[in-house]
């Protein structure tokens, strides 16, 4: 028997500094709420199993996989997505700039998730070593780069900005 969503709920979340109030079906994943309802399409979906990390966002500061949460669970939370990384004047964050300089992206599909995981890392550990970066990114899959340039970019960003 299909599970027709019979209930919905109004939730309020702050995302990148803006508060959104929306009614969402109980079965809607947070990632689809961001993408489909709010048009914040920078956050991506790459798997069904919580394995790939393309949907990573920051929820109250912690990096979480937004495909592994229901939207209603985010009620009252403060979120940050890739759209919230650059400054208000459009200036790229040091990490975004480092990905660009070090060729840390190719197709760009995993990039938002990588940036969010790495941003969370740099906030708790501003100068991570190569091994610390790899550990922090182990939940993020990239199929284009082989990770070498991504790790290099995050380490460089931790050394005080793009090299």
């Amino acid at each position, binding site marked *: 028997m299909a599970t027709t969503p019979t209930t919905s709920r109004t939730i309020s979340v702050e995302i990148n500094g803006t508060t959104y109030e929306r009614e969402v079906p109980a*079965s809607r994943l947070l990632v689809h709420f961001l993408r489909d309802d709010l048009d914040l399409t920078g956050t*991506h979906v790459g798997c069904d199993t919580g394995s790939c990390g393309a949907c990573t966002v920051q929820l109250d500061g912690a990096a979480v996989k937004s495909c592994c949460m229901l939207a209603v669970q985010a009620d009252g939370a403060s979120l940050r997505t890739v759209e919230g990384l650059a400054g208000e004047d459009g200036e*790229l964050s040091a990490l975004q700039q480092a990905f660009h300089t070090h060729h840390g992206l190719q197709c760009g599909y995993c990039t938002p998730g990588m*940036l969010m995981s790495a941003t969370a890392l740099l906030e708790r550990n501003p100068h991570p070593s190569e091994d610390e970066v790899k550990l922090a990114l182990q939940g993020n899959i990239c*199929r284009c780069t082989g990770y070498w340039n991504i790790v290099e970019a995050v380490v460089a960003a931790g050394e005080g900005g793009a090299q």
Partner: protein
Amino acid sequence: MTTVETEAPTLQKGAAMGQSVPRKEDGRLVQGQGVFFDDIKRHGMGFLHFVRSPYAHAKIESIDVSAAHELPGVYGTLTGDEVAILTDPFFQIAAPPGGHVKDYALAVGKVRYIGEPVVAVVAQTRELARDAAELVTVEYEPLEVVVDARKALQEGAPVLHEECGGNMSYTGVWEWGDVDAAFAEADHIVSIKELHFDRFNSTPLECDGALVEYNRGTGQWTMYTNNQFPGFAAIMMGPALRVGLDKLRIVTQDIGGGFGNKITTHPQLVVCCLLARKLKRPIQWTEWRTEFHQSMSHGNERWFEDTEVAVKADGTLLGFRTKAIDDAGAYLRYEPLGGVIWSQVAPGMYKWRHLRVEFTQAMTNKAPCSPNRGYSRMQQLWFTERVIDIVAHELGFDPVEIRKRNYVQPEDMPYETPNGCVYDSGDYPRALEMALELVGADRIEERRAEAASRGKLLGLGIGSTLDSGTNNFGQSQLVNPDLQFSGNNEVATVKLDIFGEVVVTLGTTPQGQGHETTAAQVVADTIGCDVDSVHVRAGHDSYWNSHAGFSGTYASQFAVTGLGAVKGAADMLAGQMKQLAAMVFQCAPDDIELAEGFARIKGNPEAALPFMALGAIVNANNAGFPDDPPTLNCRYVYRPPFQVPDKERKFGNLTLTYSMQIHACVVEVDPETGVTEVVDYAAVDDCGTRINPQIVEGQVMGATAHAIGAALWETFAYDEDGNLLTPNFYDYHVPHALDMPPLKTAAIESPSPFTPLGTKGMGEGGGGGIHCICAGIQDALRAAGGAIVTDSHNPYHRVWELIAHPERSRENVEVRSK
């Protein structure tokens, strides 16, 4: 990165070309502003979900969609019965028997693999569509299943496609030179009973999908999609939908990885088209990860049976004969092209002249195969590399020396292979030296001893590989003489607009290869401006008039066909700008130079027109102009110089360029567990002139990661009932950041003499990492019973078996010496 130039480049590198210009694409991608197909929304669109087969082989007894239709929010459904009425089966590349396959967009009458789409359901939301799909009832009568290509070819095996009379889709004998004479001349004959190249694919992070709209007034469909070969998709879809190709507008922008896996989405796109028309609303289809793994584009699995190798006493390789069995899966979406594409690299990088391959392709109850990074050549190159290392192992040759002795040498270039392919340029022995140096091969015995003191088995492996690029589609006639395909083409337009904007459109569908950047580099240097002033439109659009029959991004060719078209169009524009400036200044076009965004009289910097002035004259201020001004809107079709191959002899040049990579690795195997750790790794690349070295290196890295994954972790494993055991990233382990070894890269530039810019197609890497890790494991195991590596995929349990029972693998090999 060490860069060594072996020859003077054919191209005068300019201010931009040859530089690692940071990518133009990155700005939007690092801010989440890329536009991937799933980001596109339309008012009233319906979400599509497929009902898929839970059986690997079964008759469809009945389908009942009524309960799904009753669910509020469901817009409609599509079944195979409707598809069979509304469309024709897809055109088959194969000649009979494979040519008899009837392939529709949904299963008709029968299912042939688990995950095959049977019914499509469209609803108001993603969640509803998925729920409604569960309400569809399909009754099946299960049939006997065959998942092993060797068994599928045997008498009495269950037949997938009755109209084919069996499971064989293609067979042919490929023989060049005098094989019998080579074996008569040989001092040693090394036999290898069976080698197996495993099934995997590159699993791009973005799955397949589309947003499809139907315009009832014009009968045209627009597909915002991530298909990477729109030329092929259109050729497949038009006849199936019974429309001309003008009715199919294919649009791409950002694509989340492709690697060949996104070439054969035409069946699903046809379903979207039919539903957009039927339900009178835009259709949104996004594949789920499990669906991608179960049903899309697996790489060709291949067996090599009864291989024999003719070797002289001094280690000179004379030739080989083998029987290849290719597993195409349940349908022939792009197959049996894998049955010919391997022959682009028939001898690998070696000079043996006497080759015989009996090639047979079988259909099995597994997901269909289609191109995957290194498509079909990777299997053949792995075979030649495995043969070299097994021969060296059995006859006591040094794997380095036997390679150097038998490599095609730089002085042989351009080198014609026994089957008429032309290796354009390169220095393989030198690249090998560089790779060995980078992994510290001179200290290998010392390191072996040190590892042994820690209880580890250490080995050195080499993987020599070719990345043949720019297909001659005439090779398709070698598997089906009636096909009317040959050559290749790609298109670009470059124009100067009203305010001096330089605008470029391409027919390609980049998925991370940085086409916007490299195209801008070529245009900037050609017309004399900076890279930032060149605006390259992102992606492909069939309405731009910048595409041809073979447009797309696949088969390692952008640097040749794509940039060839860009260079051609930019040269045309430069000529027109000079002509126009000459009209204004009343001088000869040859007196004009283009530089720094101006057209100016040489030696007279005062007489200079900014690009904006030229664009304005033509586009907005042309009245009274004395002569017909040029259009400043230039379209160029690049066509590589190909002939149709000789079908009788299966002889001819199948590929324009041959990039080369030598990979070398040092591995440590834990004999207790069979776990392999790659501790050193180097890749030396030669793809001719590099327009953007950083992008090239990125491609080398990506291909290396794919190969390491395939060698150690990634496999599409099936059980006997045809269940895929690795249907998601949880079970199908792709490398993570922690899995990657330290990597060193280096490059040689041997410009291709055959291409406009000296460039060669690259990016696929030819599985170099698979070859060298297999070799490294075999080398490590010499000290533990001398097992032979016979599989391309070597997870810890297989390596453990090799250590525990080396005699089992050794039974595969026999040496007869005179």
